[in-house]
């Protein structure tokens, strides 16, 4: 009993210190998405170019849903990565033009290049709310069934692509592959 009394505060201190120490290295701006493993919210909207678009128009394979805006500087940082992915063609990129103005968005695509299959026009951010978006850039990984599998908040750098997205995609494919 005496031993317990002696060691309990030390154990409690160590446990607390470990939790707080771990907390130092967590990014508080990265909130877990509640939409993981849930289907994409349903939408009937238009693209930035003015074409009607809905869930039926989503690529029937693994794709990226990238939330962007012409005002968004980090979006320019990840733009080359999106361009590369789009050129390689393995993973289609669908854009969500979030809280932007249509003409500014069109201009931005014109000047910087358009990596998107199409960009869903979300001028008032209403679709963004359904996605749980809180600021561009955010990138969702969506599978062929239209189920959201992963969400990355912030710039999609090449290392994020390699270290986070590629393993996640490999895992998805493993789960989807027909068992022998």
């Amino acid at each position, binding site marked *: 009993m005496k031993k317990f009394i002696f060691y309990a*505060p030390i154990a409690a201190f160590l446990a607390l210190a470990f939790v707080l120490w771990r907390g130092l290295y967590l990014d508080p701006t990265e909130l877990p998405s509640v939409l993981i493993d849930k289907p994409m919210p349903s939408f009937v909207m238009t693209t930035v170019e003015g074409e009607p678009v809905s869930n039926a128009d989503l690529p029937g394979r693994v794709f990226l849903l990238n939330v962007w805006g012409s005002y968004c500087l980090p979006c320019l940082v990840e733009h080359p990565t999106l361009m590369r992915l789009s050129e390689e063609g393995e993973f289609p990129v669908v854009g969500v033009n979030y*809280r932007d103005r249509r003409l500014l968005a069109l201009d931005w695509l014109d000047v910087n290049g358009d990596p998107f299959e199409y960009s869903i026009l979300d001028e008032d951010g*209403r679709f963004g*709310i359904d996605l749980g978006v*809180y*600021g561009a850039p955010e990138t969702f990984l969506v599978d062929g069934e239209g189920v959201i599998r992963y969400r990355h908040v912030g710039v999609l750098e090449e290392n994020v692509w390699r270290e986070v997205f590629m393993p996640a995609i490999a895992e998805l494919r493993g789960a989807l592959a027909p068992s022998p």
Partner: protein
Amino acid sequence: MYSPRLLLLTALLLAATPGFSQVDTFVFENDEQQQRFRQLSNELRCPMCQNANLTGSPGGVAEDLRREIHRMILAGNTDAEIEQFMFERYGDFIFYLPRLRADTVLLWFGPLLFLLLGGYIGWRIFRQASGNQQAASGVALDQAEKERLRRLLDDE
């Protein structure tokens, strides 16, 4: 008297009034709705600015969420429905008071747990200490010891 400079100055002063700063002006059907709107935007947390509620946050998403609360109140949604709507999109983070669930139990009752643990340890230590004291005062001195104690005290 009405010099152009004075007019310009007045115009500039008027332009600087806080009244011109951007404020949401939501119109409600009655005070009760307005009260609910205020309560909800005070209790929900802005997902972007981390430590501000929806009322106090200048963030774009907070603006959108306030607009959404206003729309839902006018559409006749209850507070619980609006909170559920937010929860389904932004998760526990949106609440300043997280919901009580299996994985939030520690958050709610952790402090109580620590208080009980500390109280128990404190009580044990206290009891042990007072036990020792009792044992010490319970020892009777024999004749020789009493004599020695008296001599020691006299020397002082």
